[in-house]
């Protein structure tokens, strides 16, 4: 193995719960092995031991891929690493990097931490890295949103950039090949959605959109196509999609559907409320016995 020929990867952890690190370690085993065979992970605070963060900051070599997990603040009293703020450390690392990838919703948009009312200086990386540095990058910053991000999305992004040098991004800087479809696509409960059959948390039957707060029809994500552990997803096991890949995540009361006089406030993306309600009224007229029974007694 010639590590000098492999692109280098630095994983910087800012204000984070480590959820995305856990996610990476849960990747398909053969894919993770391919990652370690193809890239040189020179720094991760929990996984590597040869170099310290100071070593990375003082080295002359460029970093090929800088991955950031967690939100950023310049407030050292709130959070610091080696007596420096995550804001300063991020900017120092970014000035040495060719590609910058936000891993997870906190690094992309501030996530849960941006809701913290005692510190209003918490942001995603795009709002934290200075403009000159951004302009010198070989590629726009890439946001891999999700709480956590799916491990395959991290690997697919790295391999695509390694092999082709660029990716198409949407207006929120997310790779289109991973975020152009909705969590709704591939959901095994779609037939219940079509016929407006409500479901309950944790059960096999029913759609979770009507009462349980499911955001599948308005959330850009491929988590019902690229499955967790290669076998499942939240909605498949009866947990509503909580819209963790969207910039308004986390929202309040995520496990209930906001309704106005019994009518869902939000309807599937790109569909007018009038069109949605027309279809709903017709679908609800028919009671499909098969869909109103338990799958297993």
């Amino acid at each position: 193995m010639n590590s000098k020929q492999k692109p280098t990867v630095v994983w910087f952890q800012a204000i984070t719960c480590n959820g995305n690190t856990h996610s990476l370690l849960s990747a398909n085993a053969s894919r993770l092995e391919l990652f370690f065979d193809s890239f040189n992970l020179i720094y991760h605070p929990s996984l590597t031991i040869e170099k310290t963060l100071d070593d990375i900051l003082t080295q002359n070599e460029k970093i090929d891929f800088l991955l950031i997990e967690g939100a950023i603040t310049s407030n050292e009293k709130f959070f610091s690493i080696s007596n420096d703020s995550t804001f300063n450390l991020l900017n120092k690392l970014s000035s040495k990097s060719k590609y910058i990838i936000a891993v997870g919703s906190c690094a992309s948009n501030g996530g849960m931490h941006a809701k913290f009312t005692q510190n209003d200086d918490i942001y995603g990386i795009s709002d934290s890295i200075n403009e000159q540095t951004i302009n010198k990058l070989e590629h726009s910053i890439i946001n891999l949103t999700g709480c956590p991000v799916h491990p395959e999305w991290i690997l697919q992004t790295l391999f695509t950039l390694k092999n082709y040098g660029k990716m198409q991004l949407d207006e929120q800087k997310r790779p289109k090949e991973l975020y152009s479809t909705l969590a709704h696509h591939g959901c095994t409960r779609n037939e219940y959605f079509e016929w407006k059959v409500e479901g309950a948390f944790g059960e096999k039957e029913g759609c979770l959109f009507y009462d349980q707060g499911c955001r599948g029809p308005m959330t850009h994500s491929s988590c019902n196509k690229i499955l967790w552990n290669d076998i499942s997803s939240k909605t498949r096991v009866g947990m509503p999609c909580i819209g963790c890949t969207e910039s308004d995540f986390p929202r309040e009361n995520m496990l209930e559907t906001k309704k106005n006089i019994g009518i869902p406030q939000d309807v599937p993306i790109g569909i007018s409320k009038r069109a949605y309600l027309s279809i709903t009224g017709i679908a609800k007229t028919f009671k499909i016995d098969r869909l109103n029974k338990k799958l297993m007694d």
Partner: protein
Amino acid sequence: MKMSVGNMYNYFSSKEELAKFAIKYSTNILAIELREVNNMNISSKEKIYVFVRKYLENVQKSPEIIEYFLRVYLSNREVFKQGCEGFLCVGEFVTEVMILLDEGAQKKEFREQEFFPAFGMLMGCLGGFAFLSGENVLDKDLLAYSDAVADNIYRALKYEQ
């Protein structure tokens, strides 16, 4: 209609088909009017007042349309059980009622409640007045009651602090 009874069958395969078409026709008149009201840039309270007036004008101008809905559609459900069940033939009007209620609740002009009690109150109030008008028992001109009916509907829906 200046048309023989038999000639009807050139246009409708059965009496049931004619009945379904008639109910779609009559409710779509109301649906189109309510959609126009929903698209107005006025408060939800004002929308109720405008729509109630339009509705009562219809009752006065074309009583047969509303009478058909009240006396045929609601009283002869067996005629409509195939292909006209539920909201199938009145869907466009129900959708517009949903839009009216949803927008009012979103703007906090209307209080939160389940859909069917709100829908039932609105329709009951409007249907009841068409019935009273049809029976000729009202003291005053029908439109003289418009604001009072609208006020009752609004009070039943309005947001409470």
